[in-house]
């Protein structure tokens, strides 16, 4: 994933180096292209064997939803596009994403277990949930910003990948890695640009700037990985909700006692608060994995049904 991250950084730095002045739109455009190219390279390196037309939820995420969110964030980043129009696009994508991911599955089939009403209600509720998380994180990034928001999203995405893998869907969990690598790389690259090329940067809060593209791609990819893990894999609803909502704990630092603290303190609080529920989910998932999968992985079991590691000692 170093290659994907490096590619993202190079794209961002080259695009911004070619600009005399750097405004929010250019930062966002560079970020969108950096993420897109980084993801393409990362997925190729992972050999995810994507197919067209898409055969499963992961194919639909990487070949339809991700290009769509990159397109939406590219358009929404231009100053000429009214904020209302930008958010209409984002909400439309939020409502469409669950429908796209479930396409052709038993959930939408007339012969499946779900009625049309249940399918429709699930799609609408999930879509609105995605839109809500997206809007809250986007609001926070504009209100107080900070690299910690990108890091919190990356933590949650990585945790979602681990949780999906531990539930038994290896490829689905592995798909989280390029997202984490590219989002982290692009966030750091933008931070470097706003700090060391400050004279060319024309934005209000350069130190706390978080590109809308990072939030958009981060939230949509987090939601989609959890959605695929829930409806096609074996991850349960509770852990999926916990991971999806964990980044919103960054809002806790907007409370009066914490709001005006030093930036490093605020960032540390955010990351610590987000990490706690994620850690609980991963630990619980690991215990479940050890309990269920141990016999399949060749670990010996005691007579009382518990498992023990087989160890070899050199005498």
């Amino acid at each position, binding site marked *: 994933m170093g290659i994907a991250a490096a590619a993202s950084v190079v794209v961002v730095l080259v695009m911004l180096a070619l600009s005399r002045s750097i405004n929010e739109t250019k930062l966002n455009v560079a970020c969108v292209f950096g993420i897109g190219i980084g993801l393409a390279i990362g997925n190729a390196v992972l050999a995810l064997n994507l197919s067209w037309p898409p055969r499963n939820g992961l194919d639909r995420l990487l070949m339809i939803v991700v290009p769509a969110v990159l397109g939406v964030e590219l358009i929404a980043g231009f100053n000429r596009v009214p904020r209302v129009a930008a958010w209409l696009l984002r909400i439309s994508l939020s409502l469409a994403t669950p429908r796209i991911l479930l396409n052709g599955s038993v959930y939408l089939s007339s012969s499946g277990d779900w009625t049309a009403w249940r399918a429709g209600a699930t799609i609408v509720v999930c879509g609105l949930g995605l839109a809500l998380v997206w809007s809250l994180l986007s609001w926070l990034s504009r209100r107080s910003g900070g690299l910690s928001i990108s890091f919190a999203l990356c933590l949650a995405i990585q945790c979602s990948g681990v949780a999906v893998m531990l539930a038994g869907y*290896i*490829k689905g969990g592995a798909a989280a890695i390029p997202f984490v690598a590219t989002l982290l790389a692009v966030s750091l690259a933008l931070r470097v640009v706003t700090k060391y090329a400050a004279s060319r940067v024309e934005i209000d809060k350069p130190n706390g700037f978080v590109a809308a593209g990072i939030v958009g791609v981060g939230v949509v990819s987090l939601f989609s990985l959890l959605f695929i893990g829930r409806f096609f894999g*074996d991850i349960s609803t509770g852990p999926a909700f916990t991971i999806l909502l964990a980044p919103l704990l960054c809002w806790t630092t907007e409370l009066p006692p914490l709001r005006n603290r030093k930036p490093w303190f605020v960032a540390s609080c955010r990351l610590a608060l987000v990490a706690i529920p994620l850690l609980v989910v991963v630990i619980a998932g690991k215990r479940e994995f050890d309990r269920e999968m141990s016999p399949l992985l060749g670990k010996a079991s005691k007579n009382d049904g518990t498992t023990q590691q087989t160890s070899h000692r050199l005498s």
Partner: protein
Amino acid sequence: MIRFLSASTQMLVCGAILCVYTTPTFAADEYDYDLVHSSVSFKARHLDIGWIHGRFNDVAGKFSIDREDPSKSTFSLTIKTDSVDTANEARDKHLRQPDYFDTKQYPTIEFKSTSTKAIDGGYEVTGDFTMHGTTNKITIVLMGGKEHSFKNVKRVAFSTELALKRSDYGFDKNAIGAIGDKALIMIDCEGVRK
């Protein structure tokens, strides 16, 4: 009277001719798959040293056998992939996921015959085999077909084995390794006549 006798004789002769030249038609016998007395099982290599065995517990099908013209016989089978059973719940849950059968995306495995040929001891059946969203034409040999009547219920049974590669059916290539690409499927089915 002579004309009447001639007319009657003519009718008799015509009737006789019709009886000789008209071939009597018998409809094909239709059978429903009897889940209780049938099984669809499979085995695949594990680490290239042993075999993992499993079965599908929810199978349905129909076949019609035309004993006068076997080429008109048809066979169809539908297997619910969710019913995979390898005697280990954790492994079954894993097999249902997108790395393997992806049962929420591809809930069934299906076979529909397109042509049938009678052979010594059974039938050679060519048809469309659909698994994991991919359809390939395969030919299977169904041995059996003798009808038996038990408690006023007519039954017929067939057996077949087929080998196929998971990679030919769109299974994730990264998931082919510990579990071998090739799988052997054994089908023993009994049909009950309506």
